[in-house]
């Protein structure tokens, strides 16, 4: 299939519609709908894409009430799975006219999902992903990563929710121990640990020793981790906590970890902390990785994952697509409402999402390298984890701490406890009553 598009201004989209009204009726119907909503969107001044103006228009966070992007995108996904090439061509072209990574939510979603759909249609997902990843890697530095994550944590509890819950569980599980070893497999650049170090220094009568072993997952540049490690060491010195920092990199995937490789000693009390880590494991290897974690004899394992299901539907493109669209619509809306409109950090997070979207929708399974990104829901993770562990509920104190944390952010966030009856465990962070992040604790 050969596609040619030029990057036109999205504002000219409406002039193309009239000439296409004679073609495929179904498509024309979509055209009409999109036309009206697209026109409405375009008539709004570009600068007014703040949540307040939008919500006053339509009561929804972004994209007005029409959600033209999701309609077009879903149509296109269906067309791809049906291999209807003229329809695909047409829809891709339309999306390209309307999409923009610098517009409102709909335009952004259209832009990034269009990229993934295009890659899927042209079977170029792997290459596209690699290129995007390379670009990102080259423009990231310790400073940019730090600025990004700290800013994100300042405006949204998306990551801090899991941090506070996990730290609480870890502190309680390891209370009284004098030699702690935390194995950290996460994507938050050690921003979880300063508050834990502070707690270790102040809460206990005798400050225990902490060894922190960070397992670098793909996508995090090693030089960044080196700098992060130095900061952690300095900070631990400041706190008066005896501290040792190690980085494990160069693994192809987590399954290659060993007790010796991690430096786990018999006299240590081990905690394993996985934030956004399990989803990077290839779906078929998840059970064995969980067994591997069990073999490290930890006192506690904390798992934090985003609440979405890209795994069970991985052989059903349309279903996977819909779920992906649902999740990232939430995410983008959340980003839009949390950051200021001109935020560079938000743009970087959106771009990161775009890479993940390409990865999930347009890349084949057998690639490994820790880039999988196929999320599962908390209840499914629970089922897997129960094969090797039993759940530890978060104590009232920890739940209180998390609630207190959420109070410090804009409204819209809430904590929901999992229903213990159908084997659910852990707690959920909800955004506008939709669960988005799941946190849980486990013991052997």
């Amino acid at each position, binding site marked *: 299939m*050969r*596609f*040619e*598009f*030029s990057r036109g201004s999205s504002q000219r989209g409406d002039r193309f519609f009239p000439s296409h009204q004679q073609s495929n009726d179904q498509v024309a119907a979509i055209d009409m709908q999109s036309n009206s909503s697209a026109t409405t969107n375009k008539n709004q001044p570009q600068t007014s894409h703040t949540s307040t103006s939008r919500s006053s228009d339509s009561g929804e966070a972004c994209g007005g009430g029409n959600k033209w992007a999701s309609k077009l995108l879903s149509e296109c996904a269906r067309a791809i799975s049906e291999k209807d090439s003229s329809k695909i061509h047409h829809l891709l072209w339309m999306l390209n006219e309307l999409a*923009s*990574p*610098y517009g409102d939510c709909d335009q952004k979603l259209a832009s990034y999902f269009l*990229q993934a759909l*295009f890659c899927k249609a042209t079977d170029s997902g792997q290459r596209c992903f690699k*290129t*995007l990843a*390379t*670009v990102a890697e*080259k*423009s990231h*530095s*310790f*400073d*940019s990563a*730090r*600025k990004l994550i*700290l*800013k994100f*944590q*300042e405006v949204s509890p998306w990551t*801090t929710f899991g941090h*506070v819950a996990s730290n609480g569980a870890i502190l309680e599980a390891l209370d009284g121990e004098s030699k702690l070893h935390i194995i950290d497999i996460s994507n938050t650049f050690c*921003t979880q640990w*300063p*508050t834990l170090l*502070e707690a270790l*220094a*102040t809460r206990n*009568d*005798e*400050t225990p020793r902490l060894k922190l072993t960070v397992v670098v997952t793909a996508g995090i540049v090693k*030089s960044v981790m080196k*700098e992060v490690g*130095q*900061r952690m060491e*300095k*900070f631990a*010195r*400041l*706190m*008066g*906590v005896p501290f040792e920092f190690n980085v494990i990199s160069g693994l192809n995937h987590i399954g290659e970890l060993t007790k010796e490789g991690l430096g786990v000693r018999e006299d240590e009390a081990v905690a394993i902390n996985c934030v956004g880590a399990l989803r990077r494991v290839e779906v078929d290897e998840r059970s064995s990785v969980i067994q591997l974690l069990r073999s490290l004899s930890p006192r506690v394992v904390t798992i934090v994952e985003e609440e979405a299901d890209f795994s069970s539907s991985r052989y059903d493109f349309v279903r996977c697509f819909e779920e992906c669209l649902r999740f990232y619509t939430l995410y983008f809306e959340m980003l839009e409402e949390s950051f200021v409109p001109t935020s*560079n950090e938000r743009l*970087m997070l959106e771009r990161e999402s*775009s890479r993940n979207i390409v990865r999930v929708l347009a890349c084949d399974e057998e690639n490994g390298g820790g880039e999988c990104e196929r999320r599962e829901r908390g209840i499914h993770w629970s089922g897997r984890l129960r094969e090797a562990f039993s759940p530890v509920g978060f104590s*009232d*104190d920890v739940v*209180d*701490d998390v*609630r*207190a*944390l959420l*109070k*410090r952010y804009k409204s819209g966030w809430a904590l929901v406890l999992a229903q213990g009856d159908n084997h659910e465990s852990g707690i959920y962070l909800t955004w506008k009553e939709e669960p988005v992040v799941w946190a849980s604790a486990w013991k052997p």
Partner: protein
Amino acid sequence: MGAEEALTSSCNGSVENPVGGSSNPPAQKKKRNLPGTPDPEAEVIALSPKTLMATNRFLCEICGKGFQRDQNLQLHRRGHNLPWKLKQRTNKEVRKRVYVCPEKTCVHHHPSRALGDLTGIKKHFCRKHGEKKWKCEKCSKRYAVQSDWKAHSKTCGTKEYKCDCGTIFSRRDSFITHRAFCDALAEETARVNAVSSISNLTSGNYHLMGNPLGPNMAQHFSSIFKPISSNDHLTRQGHSLWMSQGGAPHFSEAMAGNNIQEIHQLGSVTSSGSIFRDPLAVPCSNTPPSDHYQFNWPVFGNKISSNIAHEELTSTLALPLSNVKEAAAAASQLVSVPSLYSTPQQKSHQTASANMSATALLQKAAQIGATSTDPSFLGSFKVQDGNNKFCGLYGSSPISTNPASDMEKIKKRSNSHSKSASNVLC
């Protein structure tokens, strides 16, 4: 003697025999033992939960007012013109008493970890094992002791935390996280290491580069999490130590010296590296031209409009700086820096209340830390960057002051902080 002894005998599991051969010998310090490491000769007393929770057991028969201790009641009785009697300390040797926590799962349940005074064990039991009935509305923190809750409520949400970089935070947790990653923290240690490098570098031909930072001694080893409202009266002895070592000019020289090496290093990096190449150009060269790729994605950047280009550039500008830092790290590590913190000087960094582990820590840390200069002390040179990234980094906080001017840092801060971890409690 009376009431407590009676209760002792009625407790289950009470240990009235002295604890011999405790596994935790008392600390070397003369003043007081570390909490929970009792004198092995002491008499161990186990009180019941009920006893511990009871607060005002000594009641005045006239007005019913309760007191925690008999002495207080006696003094109160004077006000009613009642006969009172203060018990004298008996002349015969009184054996020291220590108290264990009745909660079996508690660390302090075991006699070897008993606490030394009655009030202490009462507070401990109530706070740790008591029901937390009192809850702060603002932050959801819960307390078992009402007075604790009251004290907290007065100050909750009113504190502001100020980092050395100038940013102010209303949330303690984000302050802590920021602090750990803040360049101001890195710079302190860099300056410390720079001082140590003076004694090592014999060559004198460093030209002074107008060092914008100056001798801002006050920032280092902030006890950090003290909110702004409390004035810190503990000045660091190390502070004056460094000042006496020669002040600004030496610092500038030392840093300038490092700079020269770094800049040379930078030159070599540039020539060898693809680092400074426009990252936007990279994908275009890597992407093989094919029929499928007539399509131009904005993220690839070839046809991006001008406003997009600007955003790309700001992120790429971060790039050379970070690599400069790495280069600096490489260069600086070539300089062998012996530990400035030989024992007598290093101890001066401690405040009086620091415990031994912190001292030992610093010693060890100094030996380790002194040999690797922190690369990001080049953060000071961000000011030279036209974009003023330094400002940009800290400008993102909603209540941030403008930290961009390093000249501000030259002013000595009156609130220099001490390092001890115990001061973190606020």
